[in-house]
């Protein structure tokens, strides 16, 4: 059963990446598109805990690092690992995550991820401010919107099973 769960997560991981490199572009509004990968990481961390969050966070981050400038290798991996761990910890220790809380945590995870990434890559303050306002904030809102739909569908699915 556990193995099946890992296989299922692997499939979802591939699906999310496929969505990110195809559907995300079609959904982009003013060059802002949702981040399916971070939705996946948050969902996994919430459902499976911090260890799985770390693992899939690292895997997703590394997949993004492969295509980023070589000098920034590791930046996405570190950011996503931290996000997976933090969200898993939040869910395990402090929060009973209902729908709005999940969406809030998703937004928080998005901002943490970008914050760490900007910090690691060493971009100047001016550039970071600009990227934060033009990319991170709108992207975060858009991702939260898409995330809320996906989380809602997931909750709905559970209810029908019960």
């Amino acid at each position, binding site marked *: 059963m*556990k*193995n099946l769960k890992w296989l299922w997560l692997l499939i979802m991981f*591939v699906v999310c*990446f*496929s969505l*990110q*490199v*195809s559907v995300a*572009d079609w959904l*982009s509004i003013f060059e802002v*598109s949702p*981040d399916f*990968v971070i939705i996946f990481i948050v969902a996994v961390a919430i459902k499976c*805990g*911090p*260890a*799985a*969050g*770390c*693992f899939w*966070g*690292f895997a997703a*981050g*590394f*997949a*993004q*690092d*492969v*295509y*980023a*400038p*070589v*000098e920034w*290798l*590791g*930046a*996405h*991996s*570190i950011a996503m*690992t*931290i996000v997976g*761990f933090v969200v*898993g*910890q939040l869910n*395990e*220790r402090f929060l009973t995550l209902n729908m709005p809380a999940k969406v809030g945590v998703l937004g928080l995870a998005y901002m943490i991820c970008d914050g760490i990434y900007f910090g*690691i890559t060493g*971009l*100047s303050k001016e*550039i970071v401010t*600009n*990227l934060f306002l033009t*990319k991170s904030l709108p*992207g975060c809102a858009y991702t939260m919107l898409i995330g809320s739909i996906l989380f809602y569908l997931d909750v709905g699915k559970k209810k029908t099973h019960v």
Partner: protein
Amino acid sequence: MLRAFRFIVDLFSQRHGVVAFAFFLALGLLMRQAPNSVRQSVVSAALGSVFYPAQLAVSSLNAYRAVAEENVQLKEENARLRQETYHAREGLQELARLHTLVRFDDKWDYPIVTSRVVGHNPGRFLTTLVINRGNKHGVKEDMPVFSMNGLVGKITKASLTHSRVQLLVDPNLKLSVMERRTRVVGFLESMDGHTLTAMVPAHAGVVAGDTLVTSGLGGIFPKGIPVGTVKEVRKSDLDVMRQMDVEPFQEFSILEEVFVMEKEPDWEIKELLDEEP
């Protein structure tokens, strides 16, 4: 095997995932600290062994789906008309492509390798593409890559069957450009991995709407490939230079097909570049 896997999973799950967190964080930090050559090998190994085959499969599935859809559509039509329409459409596409290629060839006289984009960065900052042409097809490192609209970037890593394209928005790519009207030379770079910024001497009088092309300096890109238009001119920290936002002619996220110009860097300049530490 399964036991070993379970043992690792159990080990990593201990203490609320702290072990896993420490391990992956250390791995990430190690990558950050590794020398550039090691990083390059890590990226190449990962790209060649996992990501390229996976993306090629996804890309091929997309191509298969497109063909299947087209097939269903065509079946609905009369056989003769279908054949004619198909030939006409193919012919028109071929003609348009040949027109473009001939224009480029006339200008620069280098062989062109047409290639399909099979993968790109899944993150929020698109800086790299993977194409399905490599050493086997004559593609080598530092060859210019362009589309029908303009310059796309250059080859940074060529494997046997695929290559990595460094896009103009990669912060590590700095490019010498020339403004077409005033003929003044400046340089273009992306500082944030998203927008393009050009630095041009202030006295040149470059204004918004002017066109930037490659200057031919640097030895990698030939002179005259369209790069983009000046969107906004700003005053830079240096009084003698003007900083300007540039809108590239090519939207990188929607690229499906690119051309690699089989032009190797001029040997004198390449020698100088190779001497750099």
